[in-house]
């Protein structure tokens, strides 16, 4: 990991013992980020545009079956496999530790999508349209991506930008909990916590030190910014 030049290192903790798999985060993300609306056919072709998905796994044999949920979004890796492979720097690392994606630079080689071990990058196979009145919901803060462009979770970078600007106007750092992405804001179980991992007193930093923590595909050495919490024992399944 390179030394970050910014006082912020945005990260997230997702408590799997709290997650009920309700899917509110998926909807919130779609509404916040102008994510394309996919038809049934598009989804059955494996071309859905969700930046955040809830993976569902069944454990055990009937009748003793449990279901496990795993919300997966861009892990904002610090050694991100998607970044070096992009020939045009559309995928890049910003000083706050975010994986940026610059839509206007993207030529659509889809190399980043292949090299992302978490498969969280989605490609605009279709030109997306927002039927009326859904077009009124499009956020002016965010580019509407054209077809042929790769996109993915940004940790709601537009919200982070705004919070940082406000904090700068008041000449103070961004307070803990002042900014959170749409998914974390919406989660009814408060399973998702977002914040500045560089501040050891922040809620997210404290949770990330939990003994229940783990990272997805940690053995690949990608150094994700997203921590998952998961206890042992049946009752937590």
């Amino acid at each position: 990991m390179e030394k970050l030049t910014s006082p912020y290192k945005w990260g997230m903790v997702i408590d799997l013992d709290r997650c009920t798999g309700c899917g509110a985060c998926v909807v919130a993300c779609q509404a916040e980020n102008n994510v394309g609306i996919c038809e049934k056919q598009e989804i059955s072709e494996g071309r859905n545009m969700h930046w955040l998905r809830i993976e569902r796994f069944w454990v055990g044999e009937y009748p003793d079956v449990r279901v496990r949920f795993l919300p997966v979004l861009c892990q904002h890796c610090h050694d991100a496999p998607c970044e070096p492979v992009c020939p045009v720097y559309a995928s890049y690392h910003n000083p706050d530790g975010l994986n940026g994606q610059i839509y206007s630079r993207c030529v659509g080689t889809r190399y980043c999508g292949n090299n992302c071990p978490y498969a969280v990058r989605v490609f605009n196979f279709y030109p997306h349209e927002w039927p009326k009145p859904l077009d009124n919901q499009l956020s002016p803060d965010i580019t509407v991506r054209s077809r042929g462009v790769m996109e993915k979770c940004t940790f709601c970078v537009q919200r982070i930008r705004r919070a940082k600007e406000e904090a700068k106007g008041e000449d103070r750092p961004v307070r803990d909990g002042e900014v959170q992405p749409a998914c974390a804001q919406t989660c009814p179980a408060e399973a998702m916590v977002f914040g500045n991992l560089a501040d050891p007193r922040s809620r997210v930093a404290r949770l990330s030190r939990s003994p229940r923590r783990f990272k997805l595909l940690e053995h690949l050495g990608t150094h994700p910014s997203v921590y998952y919490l998961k206890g042992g024992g049946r009752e937590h399944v």
Partner: protein
Amino acid sequence: MYESHSLQASHNSHETNGTYENYGTNVKTATELNDELLSSLAPPSRRWYLLVFLLGAVVAWGLAAFTWQVTHGMYVTGKNRPVMWALYITGFVFWVGLSHSGTMVSAILRLSQANWRRPILRAAEAMTVFSITVAGLFPLIHLGRNWIFYYLIPYPNQRGLWPNFRSALLWDVTAITSYIIGSSLFLYLGMLPDLALVRDRSQGWRRTLYTILAMGWRGTAREWVIYQKASTLMAALIIPVAVSVHSIVAWDFAVTVVPGWHSTIFPPYFVIGAILSGVAAVITLMIIIRKAFRLEEYLTPLHFDNMGKLLLVISLLWAYAYFVEVQTTWYAHEPIEWEVFSFMSGRYTPQLLIMLLGNALLPITAMCFKRLRRSIGMMLVVSLLVNVAMFIERFLIIVPSLSHKNMPFVWGSYHPSLVEVSVNLGALAGFALLYTLFAKLFPIVAISDVRELEERQAEVRLGRARLSSIAGKD
């Protein structure tokens, strides 16, 4: 002109020189040789026009499919998440592989002074140029936004951005550009004396064309000395370029963290595969050219015998590389790596079997027998099957790995779409079309190289000295 050397090739002198293996049948005079080998440049027949028309139609169909993709979106392909690369990149790797033919046959055999290469080297070099050109189109075809492909080219721009040279795709751009330039120069340089020869025998617009291309070649001794040096140097220089090109193509896969791709054996494995498909393609072409231009006297069973031996060696190497790759994965049995292999062998069993048959079993067994190596029919079957198998091999490397990556929840599969198949067919037809036009416009057999061999065969040995016999009709 070269004819002025006029080295007689009498049968007597040839017979006295039994140490020289005879790769042509009879040693001919320069005039006979020129007449025969340049007959391919005669005004085209109706069948030729029909062939060009048919190939042109397939190319047009491929272009229409590509236009459809550009105007509608990448959804017209069969790609999805997680299989974001598929048939286009398969085509890319396959055509880059084919382009190794010219280098292999021409450069390596030139440096090893294998004289039997002479009648086929032009055909092989031209194949290199056209297949690398076709290959270079695929990465552009597969872009999501083809219309801004120039973002990949390093040039000063208003975006203030240099392309990312950490990306293997930029290495590709660099390597393929170098290879296109290098192999075109190699082809062109080798053609210079022949171009001058054709210039002196043609009229009208053709004469103008050849006059420009021949760059004032007169065939003086000094020109020949420089030409020989330059050709040998080019041959030595083009080999590392060819090896690097396919290593870099392999790195597109090997440098990723995709299970099944991330493998150190890939660069040598890809280079061997490339040479295998290249040699097989040269054999196929030899058979076609031999038939089409009636070159039975120049492309003899002996040539096929030698190419068959080459195919045998490369096929053994390929089998070894494949075995090493699978054996390591099987022994380690790393769950996700092994998952890719078991998915591949389960879902694509017929393809896998064709691949093993075409790349290893058939060539290795058949090419052991001299009679089969000298049978044109058998060579055609083997060489075609090798290339079908090589295309499948590229596909099996690319698609199954992407289908079953690290996250089982997003495992997927891939079915080629009509658009992708059409573009690939268009590329094949485009290659054949370029080749057909080339063979009509330029001498497809390297006359000067063949003559050089004839000249050597006409040498007389007197004690330790070797003398050329200089007497003859022309």
